[in-house]
């Protein structure tokens, strides 16, 4: 499973991309977040505030209940701040 981090999540975790192989019972975005937190103290800290993290599965927005599988690209990032004015 390909995991991507953007903005301050990338800065705090220290990488923008990692390939992971979670156990098969990690089958939703929410469970994946919990599992990723166990990878390092930096992951645990960066992923601790669920309310300010958005997720995308295969480049579409996804909620905590959205299914994930080993072939997915899953991204985590803060609420977006594009455009201007």
């Amino acid at each position, binding site marked *: 499973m390909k995991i991507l981090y953007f903005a301050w999540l990338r800065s705090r975790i220290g990488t923008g991309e990692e390939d992971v192989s979670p156990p098969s019972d990690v089958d939703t975005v929410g469970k994946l977040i919990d599992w990723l937190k166990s990878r390092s103290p930096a992951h645990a800290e960066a992923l601790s505030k669920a309310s300010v993290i958005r997720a995308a599965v295969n480049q579409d927005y996804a909620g905590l209940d959205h299914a994930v599988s080993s072939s997915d690209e899953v991204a985590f990032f803060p609420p977006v701040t594009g*455009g201007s004015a």
Partner: protein
Amino acid sequence: MTVRVQRDDFDPGAEVDRLTKGKTSIGAVTSFVGFVRGDASAGEAMTLEHYPGMTERQLLAIEAEARTRWPIDDVMVIHRFGRLLPGDRIVLVAVASSHRAAAFSACEFLIDWLKTRAPFWKLEDGADGPHWVDAKDDDDERADRWTTGSR
């Protein structure tokens, strides 16, 4: 439909010409150009990060949503990323339609939705070093009014 995500600047006039060239069905074009604002509180410059692939995908989805709501001939969205200075252009949204009402409404809808859906993040320079800009609630409210019909 044209969606471009690019580092380079763009020429709004030339882009609008490109949108309308050879199409006689178009009666109106509205365009929105967003700039980097040089606030006293903000830094001198910023860096705009995005999620390549998802950005284009979300912009196409936003455009498809606009087409379900208004009769649109064509849409152009150009969004820059990378290092930007106050006064620099960030984004262009242009909508061509047979009549002005649809062009005005769709253009406003597109920029409001883009701000809450397109995966861009601002890293502002500041006196204490660079910092990530938080999303604004009023941007969500501006986007939400298109779903609640409370305009």
